């Protein structure tokens, strides 16, 4: 179980004079749910953006299953197995839920212009398989009934689920979720927790940014805490929770327990 899937080595990211990430290094094992927490502005989303090729790191690098991915474009990284969701949901909002997930299949399918024009048997079969898989994934995240609804008009929680389904459609090795529970009520959060446990059980490793500490503590095997771009603690969730540095980063004081929402 302790085979390393993602390995980050001394990642630096600078925006002008601001050091958004400073020598961040950690590794995620295959099959883990790995939490990434820290106060607002700690560099969590920046780290996601580096890992998914939206930003290039200024120093350091990262490997997925032993293959160095730093410097590659977003689409190349997605093809190699890192899929993500966004903090401020970025669905293809005017398309149907089904189309959103079908677009996620793009990277695992091949039909080109000529296939599309000639509608060869291979293309038709592939197209049918794409639709079938997309419907399965909508069912997997629990919104199969909404397949033909426009993404924009879905309830908030369902939009988050749809984003996860779309990311899963790319067949990731690592699923990176940026605050998937944000804006969800307690019931929705609980359902999300079950969904993520199921994703993990199906062999996909998860990297999770989350502010809902209850969810993080209940779900994550290990947690990395960032503050001002630096990694200040790492380890099993229970231990990290009691780390004085973490408490100070969150509360700026000397309280004995963390109960940050």
């Amino acid at each position, binding site marked *: 179980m302790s085979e390393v899937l993602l390995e980050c080595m001394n990642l630096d990211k600078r925006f002008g004079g601001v050091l958004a990430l400073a020598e961040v290094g950690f590794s995620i094992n295959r099959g883990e749910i790995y939490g990434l927490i820290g106060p607002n502005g700690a560099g969590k989303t920046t780290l996601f953006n580096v890992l*998914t*090729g*939206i930003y290039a790191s200024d120093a350091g690098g990262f490997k997925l299953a032993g293959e160095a991915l730093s410097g590659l*474009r*977003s*689409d190349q990284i*997605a*093809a190699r197995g890192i*899929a*993500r969701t*966004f903090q401020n949901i*970025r*669905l*293809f*909002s*005017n*398309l*149907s839920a089904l*189309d959103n997930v*079908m*677009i*996620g*299949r*793009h*990277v695992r*399918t091949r*039909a*080109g*212009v000529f*296939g*599309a*024009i000639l*509608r060869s048997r291979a*293309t038709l079969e*592939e*197209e049918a398989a*794409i639709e079938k898989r997309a419907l399965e994934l909508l069912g997997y995240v629990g919104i199969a009934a909404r397949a033909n609804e*426009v993404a*924009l008009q879905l309830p908030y929680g369902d939009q988050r689920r749809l984003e996860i389904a*779309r*990311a899963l*459609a*790319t067949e990731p090795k690592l699923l990176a979720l940026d605050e998937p529970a944000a804006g969800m009520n307690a019931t929705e959060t609980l359902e999300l927790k079950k969904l993520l446990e199921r994703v993990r059980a199906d062999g996909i490793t998860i990297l999770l940014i989350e502010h809902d500490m209850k969810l993080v503590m209940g779900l994550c095997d290990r947690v990395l805490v960032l503050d001002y771009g630096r990694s200040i603690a790492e380890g099993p969730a229970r231990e990290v929770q009691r780390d004085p540095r973490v408490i100070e980063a969150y509360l700026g004081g000397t309280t004995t327990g963390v109960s940050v929402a």
Partner: protein
Amino acid sequence: MRGVNIFANPQAKWLGVALIAIALIGLPFALASVGTAWVRIANLAILFVFLSLGLNIVVGFAGLLDLGYIAFYAVGAYVYALLASPHFNLHLPFWVILPIGALVACLFGVLLGAPTLKLRGDYLAIVTLGFGEIVRIFLNNLSQPVNITNGPQGISRIDPFRFGAFSFSQSESVLGLVFSGPIKYYYLLLLLLLLAIVVNLRLQHSRIGRAWEAVREDEIAARAMGINTTGIKLLAFAMGASFGGMAGGMFAAIQGFISPESFVLVESVMVLSMVVLGGMGNIWGVVLGAVLLSFVPELLRYTVEPLQKALFGRSIIEPEVIRMLLFGLALVLMMLYRPAGLLPSAVRKRELTKAATE
């Protein structure tokens, strides 16, 4: 993602299709009885539908504003003219040149796209506008030191389409029906147009079509889903340009004469207007837009002057002026009442109404 369903029940649909088919087949004879000029106008209208379909791939599907689209039409037309006229004394058959024209135009599409597709929105529009003008100015000036395009005089006596002894420029009578040159062209163009529509419909509802939609909707998300956005945008440019090139070749053959004057900026704007008027992203809308904007101005040309003569005894306003006036009025009305076009695609309509309420 499915096409717009014009007719709800399938029987009515097939009846509708049959009626449209009969109307399209009979149309040139009806037009010819008014005047052969009208058949020529119908042929040009088909070419414009062709062009609009091509531009729709770029603007409607991929969401890239291209203001220099007519350049690809020009490239296709000149390729045809140079390979089938006394200018270089080359007379290749049309079915060889049309694909070459499409290919060369496609190459120009890539040439334009590769360096510019990092630009977005307005910036891309400006660069494409510049590209359109560059091509036209080149055509105007490539007569020295080596005479390639014959400059502003253009190229004349371009070969018509010909299969062996069967030429599309001569009239023929079959079973008492007279098929004039333009009527023969009409059927050929109609056939090619049908093919083009099928190609477009299939592209739209394919993996590639979905990738274009994704890029149009949210480029960053599209990239994060593994779509090579630069490649897919380049593909849209190349496909659109190929359609332009094909149409250009047909234009050269039908007219028998081309010069840079036919490929000015206003023509790019005109084709874009057709796409926007009809409804970006919806193939049937685009067809409607192109047909309307091709025929209405001609109708005006033939009615405005006689009408004024009858009413006032003389012509007060030139047809051309009225045309532009009505054009402007139509644009204003469109913006107010149907910003997504006459037959908008469902997706595009949502995009535009959302933009309006934000």
